[in-house]
């Protein structure tokens, strides 16, 4: 309990540090926020253009797709704000030879890295995602107890995103100086923008069970819209937990490898 309190204290300090460093240049900050809002809206804008020019994605209306992509923007916004920096910070610290400092700290290594990894701009993404979700929910008149399942699945999506970033961070400890690893999260994000049903069986299997990115948009939206029976949630939940446990195991393996390499 004490550890958790300490984690949040360190973390809150990291958050306020990130905020004040971003606010140092006001004009730049405002412009960055605008460009982020635009970048996050590109997915929904493309969807709108696609639905204008064609029938769109089989089985999904435009509004349903907006909800879908809102969830993806929200989940990856969480990654941008709070956990996306874990991989990046670890990489940077390993490259600069600063990682020993973290290893010396008494508190959990991961918590330390996480507190340094906060990016205040991710809040913009989260807000854009939330706006899209609320807009779609109101337009689609989706109010009811199914929202609880929706929220639960989004929570699972956040666990997935956290695990994904921990795996990338672990990889960056093992293969020092591989900046390209940053692309992994981006590539996975690609697959969260559209329903997994459009992919062939093998890819669908991969995205559901091995790297369960389906949780980052497909499962929450599908369950809420009644496109997948509630019972199928099990298919969504189990792979995420397996993925989470794997990421924790992999992180300890990477740390051991780093320490034994003379760190």
């Amino acid at each position, binding site marked *: 309990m004490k550890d958790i309190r300490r984690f949040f204290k360190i973390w809150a300090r990291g958050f306020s540090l990130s905020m004040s460093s971003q606010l140092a240049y006001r004009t730049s900050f405002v*412009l*960055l926020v605008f460009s982020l809002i635009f970048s996050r809206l590109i997915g929904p804008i*493309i969807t709108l253009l696609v639905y204008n020019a064609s029938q769109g*994605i*089989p089985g999904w209306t435009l509004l349903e797709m907006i909800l879908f992509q809102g969830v993806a923007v929200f989940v990856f916004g969480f990654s941008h704000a709070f956990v996306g920096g874990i991989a990046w910070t670890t990489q940077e610290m390993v490259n600069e030879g600063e990682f020993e400092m973290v290893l010396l700290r008494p508190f959990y290594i991961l918590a330390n890295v996480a507190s340094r990894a906060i990016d205040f701009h991710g809040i913009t993404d989260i807000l854009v995602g939330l706006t899209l979700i609320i807009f779609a929910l109101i337009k689609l008149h989706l109010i009811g107890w199914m929202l609880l399942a929706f929220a639960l699945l989004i929570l699972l999506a956040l666990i997935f995103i956290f695990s994904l970033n921990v795996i990338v961070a672990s990889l960056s400890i093992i293969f020092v100086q591989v900046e390209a690893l940053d*692309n992994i999260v*981006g590539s996975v994000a690609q697959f969260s923008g559209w329903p997994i049903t459009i992919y062939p069986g093998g890819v669908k299997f991969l995205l559901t069970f091995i790297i369960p990115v389906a949780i980052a948009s497909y499962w929450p939206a599908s369950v809420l819209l009644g496109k997948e029976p509630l019972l199928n949630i099990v298919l969504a939940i189990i792979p995420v937990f397996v993925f989470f446990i794997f990421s924790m195991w992999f992180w300890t393996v990477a740390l051991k490898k780093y320490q034994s390499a003379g760190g």
Partner: protein
Amino acid sequence: MGILTQASAVIKTATKNVFAYRFDFFTNIIFVYITLFAFYFIWHSIYAYSGQQIIAGYTFNQLITYFVLSSVTMSLLWNDVDDKVSRQVRKGKMTKALLYPMDYIIRNLFGSMGGKSMVILLQTLPVFVLGILVFGIQIKWASLLYLPVMLLAYLLNYTICFIVGATSFWFKDNKGLISIRQAIVGFLAGSVIPLSFLPLFLQKLSWFMPFQYISFIPINTFLGKYEPVFILQILGVQLVWIFVLYIILRLLWNSGIKRYTGVGQ
């Protein structure tokens, strides 16, 4: 030292720098293809579901070619001159950079082109060749006209990036502007989706802006969508835009240098 010797020295150094990152190129190609495969399946299902042969002026094969060529074009266009200039101004390193015996803007252009030769070998060509093998991209004779249009597109994009970089003499931190440039130019250039998907008034407006000449028009040239005479017109318009933007860049640069103190932070 003649300008050619100087240029070749700058180009050689840049080439070496890029070659040091060959592993990054390899992984980048993989990630480009993951994205392209995702596009392939998304659009396959859209074309199949709609039952349309042509959407926004493109057949399915043309659209896939468009996306592959968009990756090729982006790898050719990519440069970090806006970020580089801003960093040098912010950290007070411009003083040293200005002491070189070659004009700053021209020197950086050569440097960026030198880096490009390796990018072409390690990224552009593999992405393109894989496009032929995996997605069956077809090359027509008219596709060759992509090369001159692309060369001017490169200069045009480079000038725009440099202008954004030059604003750092006024804004101490112009990350915001750089990121706006990336998002808006990328979209209006047609890197994300062909501009023929946009509402008609935006398509018309695009003819009065320099952005579509950076990506959308070069790619359509590859697809053989334009008559050779029209391509001559395009090259002319590109040259005019490069000239106009270069004048703007020079004016900005000259007055920016006067403001520059070299103190740094």
